[in-house]
């Protein structure tokens, strides 16, 4: 068996993480130089996580669609539609019903995307560009061109409770230690050497906890992100659903010949994405307590950028939701950095653009050190540069 942990830490694999570390490092040094409060302050870290969380959740689900070999441009419109729906209905129906309808709307959008792409067989780009436009049109109809707010104070409170505020996990080291211990124990029961290592690490952490005594205080959306990303990651990583999803995206024909219901997985990914977008839409509604007809416009590109920065392939079969989350963190860390450093608005675009390319370049080149030959039919097809210098797989 490969030393997985080490492999996962190689720049070619974890490039996006190193890129994030580099960016954070640079910002820390710069803000110290400029005499600003520490960039790595708890407040600022909590802020960055909070600010990225909704886009990062979208990136998680979009990654699932990309892994399945499809593409979805409609996420931001669907989220806005769900937000508008939730805000329009929460006053009269109450939060649970409004939220259910909003999620249902997202689900329907996902089904429409999936069915048209898979069963009619039209290119996902054009279909989801169409639904992006059409659903945005629905938002306009629902809002009649105006900002929709939740007027009812009770409704407002219920929305706020969904999203605002922080949860504190006391003795985080102890908690993490405990979780590691449990996982380790399970693994050990399944006769894995790593299990013991994990359990050991858990014990050490738990033992350190009273000495260090850190509490973890994060915003609610950050916890939602953590749970969603962790569950999705685990499903993709450890269940047969995950294997099949990757297989379907990697080579639909091979998957079909192995008896996998390709349409089910591909449509399923769209449906999940619709549902996820709707959930994020509700969180946005709860965060802003208002949505205007152009709300979230353009977010689809940010979400795709996060996923692709995270190394997800546009051609299917490759991608990691955790790295997509890191991709989102990179983008929001940059925004946050500009705010903290007070960089002029006119200059931000040039820097964001450059950093995105450089970040991608860093780990493409790092990945190339691996120098493993990857001549794939699919890749030759996908229009890569000369194959002997295949870029790192993660970036295609």
């Amino acid at each position: 068996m490969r030393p997985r942990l080490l492999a996962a830490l190689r720049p070619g694999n974890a490039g996006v993480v190193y890129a994030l570390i580099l960016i954070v490092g640079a910002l820390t040094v710069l803000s110290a130089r400029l005499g600003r409060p520490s960039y790595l302050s708890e407040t600022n870290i909590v802020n960055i996580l909070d600010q990225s969380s909704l886009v990062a959740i979208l990136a998680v689900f979009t990654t699932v669609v990309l892994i399945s070999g499809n593409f979805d441009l409609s996420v931001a419109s669907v989220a806005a539609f769900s937000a508008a729906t939730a805000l329009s209905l929460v006053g009269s129906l109450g939060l649970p019903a409004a939220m259910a309808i909003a999620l249902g709307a997202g689900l329907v959008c996902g089904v429409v995307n999936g069915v048209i792409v898979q069963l009619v067989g039209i290119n996902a780009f054009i279909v989801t560009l169409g639904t992006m436009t059409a659903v945005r049109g629905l938002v306009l109809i629902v809002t009649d061109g105006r900002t929709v707010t939740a007027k009812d104070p009770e409704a407002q409170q219920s929305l706020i409770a969904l999203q605002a505020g922080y949860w504190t996990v006391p003795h985080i080291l102890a908690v993490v230690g405990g979780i590691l211990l449990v996982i380790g124990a399970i693994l050990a029961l399944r006769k894995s050497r790593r299990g013991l290592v994990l359990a050991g690490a858990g014990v050490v952490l738990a033992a350190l906890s009273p000495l260090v005594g850190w509490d973890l205080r994060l915003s609610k959306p950050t916890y939602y992100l953590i749970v969603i990303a962790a569950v999705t990651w685990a499903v993709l990583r450890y269940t047969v659903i995950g294997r099949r999803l990757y297989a379907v995206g990697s080579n639909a024909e091979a998957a079909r010949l192995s008896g996998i219901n390709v349409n089910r997985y591909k449509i399923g990914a769209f449906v999940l994405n619709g549902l996820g977008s709707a959930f994020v839409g509700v969180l946005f509604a709860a965060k802003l307590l208002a949505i205007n007809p152009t709300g979230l416009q353009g977010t689809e590109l940010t979400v795709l950028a996060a996923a692709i920065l995270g190394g997800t392939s546009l051609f299917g079969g490759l991608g990691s939701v955790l790295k997509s989350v890191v991709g989102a963190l990179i983008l929001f860390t940059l925004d946050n950095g500009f705010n903290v450093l007070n960089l002029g608005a006119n200059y931000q675009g040039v820097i964001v653009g450059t950093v995105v390319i450089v970040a991608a370049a860093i780990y493409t080149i790092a990945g190339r050190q691996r120098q493993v030959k990857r001549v794939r039919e699919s890749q030759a097809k996908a229009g890569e540069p000369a194959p002997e210098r295949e870029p790192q797989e993660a970036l295609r």
Partner: protein
Amino acid sequence: GGSGGDSAQAGDGGKKEYTIGVSNLGLSFPFPAAIGKGIKDEAARLGVKIVELDAQGKADKQSNDIQDLMAQQPDGVLMLPVDSGVAQGLADRLKAAGIPTVAVASQVGDPKTRPLKDVYPGLVALVTQDEYAAGGKAGEIAAQVLPGGGKIAVVEGAAGFAEVVNRWQEFPKAAEAKGATFEVVARQPGDWVQDKAQSACQNMLAANPDIQLFYAQSDDMSVGCAKAVKSAGSKAKVIGIGGSKLGIDAVKSGDVSGTVCFKPEDLGKLALDTLYKHLTGEKKQNAAFVTYDTPPITKDNVADCTPQW
């Protein structure tokens, strides 16, 4: 050739029925949408037929829209420019076609060289709120909220919008006139939207915990910023501009200390009236500057501003 040349038929009672084209900068944006609503309501009252086109915030689409409007030969045009510079060429084309045109909500001609009140020749009128003056009003509120001045941060609109410059220009002068001197410690874009402004304020506060006041260039952004201030436990004040529903509510609740009251529906009505009177000959105008009052609003006089968007 195009048709519709006699769109102005004799209606009942011998009253001519006018067709007026409206090139709106973007009907998905609440502010211009509200102007559009003002125009339509007034048109219904006057019995004027409206052809309303949506430029979707794109200057190039507005150029196409004007072309399509001209093909329909309306009696007059209300143009809500996406961009002042681009609008100049459009105004020239309308003028060449002999279509009386009123610019609404935004100047025609390069604002760097043309003062607001120097209305572009060939227009019947420019009907707008005075964005510069509104910035000044905001400065007055700031001086009132933070007497003597202090450290402030500006939450700007999206880079590239004329309002970003216009709504700042008079701010310091007006504040100074009221005895307040502000030190701008941070100036970051909130892109006109609430959540980006919320993040920006959060981050600016993290870097500059001593910020005493945020000047957000729109009400959506002031509301987002107020949330950031609250959750950071800061004592900074927030003021906005625009008089939107969200903004006025926030002023009422005290989350936002003040705003400037824009009245887009009134503006639309005013614009249509101006053009209508010109067409009927009731009041012919040439390059007239028409505006309405945009009063500063604080908790004390919040009742004076009925939000229209």
